[in-house]
């Protein structure tokens, strides 16, 4: 039986005060098991990115608790959160967020400065099929290539959980599929927990679990016993 890795317990996230108060996440609870490929689905403003940010240690709940591997992330201070992000989380952004002044290799290798036992940058680039592009700067690469560097960077940390915020949102369909395939493989073949946020319902068909959010609340949580492979979905 799989072990529960992530647990959201009655989490609330409120932005602003008084009249400007906005409830982005409203009493959300769910669990995610180790090695699962999870998609958090919802329209714009549903609160899915806020959930991901709290899970990634970039934001803290107003109420409720977030546990990862039994540790209460929501109670961590700044320093602990830095260590948590460095050791546990690999983040993939919609707009890649590579450091423009560093080459592809250096963008991946910089992880060594954060985590001593990080994986070899060359190997990671090979894994995402970019060995021949390693000396290029982000501005010299396509969006798909940049996103693959971003994945290599996330993988180099050997994280327990990989989080992706609309990782295919800025890519064309073919490149998006390649990236998605890569992420699915990380879960199915390498056993990483992968959690993606998207508004694209088709992507949800590849996931083990789909958490559907609307207006900051969980509309449904569905477990998919037979997820499709990425190439089977219609984009």
């Amino acid at each position, binding site marked *: 039986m799989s072990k529960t890795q992530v647990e959201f317990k009655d989490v609330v996230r409120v932005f602003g005060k008084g009249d400007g108060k906005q409830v982005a996440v409203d009493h959300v609870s769910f669990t995610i098991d180790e090695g699962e490929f999870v998609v958090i689905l919802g329209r714009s403003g549903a609160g899915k990115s806020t959930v991901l940010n709290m899970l*990634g240690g970039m934001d803290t709940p107003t109420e409720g608790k977030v546990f990862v591997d039994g540790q209460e992330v929501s109670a961590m201070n700044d320093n602990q959160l830095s*260590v948590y992000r*460095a050791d546990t989380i690999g983040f993939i952004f919609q707009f890649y967020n590579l450091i*423009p*002044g*560093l080459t592809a290799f*250096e963008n991946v290798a*910089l992880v060594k400065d954060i985590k001593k036992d990080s994986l070899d940058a060359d190997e990671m680039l090979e894994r995402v099929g970019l060995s021949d592009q390693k000396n290029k700067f*982000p501005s010299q690469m396509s969006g798909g290539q940049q996103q693959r560097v971003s994945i290599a*960077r996330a993988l180099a940390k050997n994280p327990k959980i990989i989080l992706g915020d609309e990782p295919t949102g800025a890519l064309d369909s073919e490149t998006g599929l390649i990236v998605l395939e890569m992420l699915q493989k990380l879960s199915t073949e390498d056993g990483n927990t992968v959690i993606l946020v998207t508004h694209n319902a088709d992507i949800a068909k590849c996931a083990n679990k789909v958490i559907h959010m609307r207006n900051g609340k969980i509309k449904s949580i569905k477990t998919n016993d037979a997820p499709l492979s990425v190439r089977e979905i219609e984009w």
Partner: protein
Amino acid sequence: MLMRKMLRDMRSSFAQFFSIFILAAVAMWCYTGFQANVIGGGRAREEFEKKTNFSDGWIYGAAFDEDRAEAVKAIDDVNDVQLRSEVLGKADEKYNTAELYCYFQDTKSVTVPFVIKGVEFDPGDEDGVWLFYRFADAWGLSVGDSFTSHVLGQDITKTIRGLIATPEYEFACASTDADTDFHNIGFAYMSVNVLPEELRGFNEIIFTCKGDPLKLEDDISSALDGNYAFLADRKSIDGYNRLTDELNQHDGFSYVFSAIFVAIALLVIITTMKRMVAHQRTQIGTLNALGMKKRKIMTHYISFSVIITALGCLVGVILGIFTFGKMMVDIFSDFYSVPGWGPGYDAKSVILSLIIVLICALAAFLSCKTILKIHPSEALRPAAAKTSKPCIFEKLPFWGRLSFTAKYDLRDIARSKLRAVMGICGTMMGMIIMLMGIGAYDTVEYVKDWYFKDIQNYDSQVLFTDSCTPDQAFGIADKYSGELISADLISIAAEEHPTSDDIVSCKLTVTEGKGLFCVSDTDLNVTDLEPGTVALTMKQARKIGLEKGDTVYWKRSSDNTWNKSRIGFISRHPSIMGITMLRADYESLGFEFKPQMLVSKQNCDSAEDLEFVSAVHSMSDLRAAFDKSMEIMDLLVYFMIFFACLLIIVVLYNSGNLSFNEREKEFATLKVLGFKSGAIRKLISVQNLWLSIIGVIIGIPLGQVPLQAMMDSNGDQIDWPCYVSPLTYFIAAAFVMAVSVIVGFMFQKRIKRINMIEVLKGME
């Protein structure tokens, strides 16, 4: 609406705009501060000279009379002429037998005493004396008091009719003092009839004229049949010229300092505006798409620069006049005697402010015009990411071994060259000013050592009265095993029959060559005078184009004969400019050696009671007086250190701030990846430190140049070789580095507060 937008934009980029404000304010603060003194002093002097009908020329000689004065007056360009007798006397013993320059006249048309208190000078009043107000204040004398002076062997007791000042004594310092002490120096105006008839002669003709009085020398010479000793202009009057030199120096400072701050302000404006318009690219595109004219948008962005610099200039001008300027005036008007000297200002401050505003507006225009050239539809889309390519630093052989921080910072420098230039230039300028400030201190100490240890190789100095006979002097020299010195005013030239333009006024010092009163060569090494030769000071040698081995022509102020001597070596002295020669050579020319001073290694305190001794100074007295005379220099030093600190802090903070803003998204990404705030701060600190180090390295060799220029701006009568000690270089560099590191810590909080979500979303 755009005004509201501007105010909000300013608030969001407060640090940069505040830096620009501070730099503009400081530029004008410096300028108006110095100018308040220069203009205020200039105006007060102009008024003073007008009211006193201050002379343009001085003809020294003997037995001048009405006919000769009339002959001079008959020269075309001469306006007014005044006969007078100038005699150095002494105040009564109860006034410490202070040096008292007495002027005896029977008319008053040129250099008429300016009355501070009492009645106008009346040359017909045989019972009255008009006394220098500073001297009177120092001794508590006032109008109506009786005052006794000893002049030409006469004891003259008269009633003080007025307390006066003249431009000839704007600066006054007794020859027995190293620094101004109004207890020891005074001047008095009296009727010539106060003197017994046999002493009523005139030794000066002073006159006002059109143009340069020295150009009239041929006319004067023929008018007086060559029967005069010396013609001098205002530049030769130390009591007047010293303030002229000082005000000229401040005038120069006002432009140099403000230029430095404006240059840095320009760099800050360019970097800030470039960043802002790039950041607001889509907003500009939107405004354009809405139909707003490009000119209006441009005006909006230029107005950031205009409003901030105009406000800065305004505050700077006001503060300059009422704080720094007033402080300078207070100090200077206490040291110099110019009635009515207050802070002054003129339209130049407004014009310079406008120039600063216009230059800064131009900088803003140039920064914005590229984006405004872009088609609105294109501007509506975010700009393409800056293209990166391998930077020049990657060619370094050890590039591969550099840490992530080093590589990241080097690439950032290569990508943001203008910001790097701003950081380097700012720290370089700060370093230069800092070196000027602390280096001025070093120079004072260096000159003090040179002067008091090398040149003045003695422990006591005994000054003789005018009545001291050579025999008395020789007697005391034997007693104290000392060296006798005499000095005289001379004119020097490179040719035997020079014209006025080729003559330089300076001093002749005659020594006995016993090694107590020494002469330094141009490397400041004490050098013995070779018999048969003279030493000529460097500045004067350069001025008349002479070198070692050449012949210098000279004549004493009391003679008409030109003498010639071979230059044995070119010398340097901090304050005595001219020729130094040996007593034997002086006497071989037929002159009588009449010592005015004895210097000795022994304690000469007991000589103070001798009637022919006017003062005895120990080396510690002389050093103390020298230190006191450096008070104004100290003020300038504090001023420079303060502004250097301000400049370095503003520039480094701004550089760090820009660096932070430009890389905020990258820092947010690094934070998400797990970088701790300290590691991110290190990125800013390390880069700032590198830029500072480069600025420091460039600033080190450049620091001595303006320092020497500052020392040279004191005029030809002072020769101070500048010196910056290794400790000063270390302190200045350490300070720059420390600020750089501290500035890094100032970003600690901001790094901690980076909102990863907002920044990463907001920068899309």
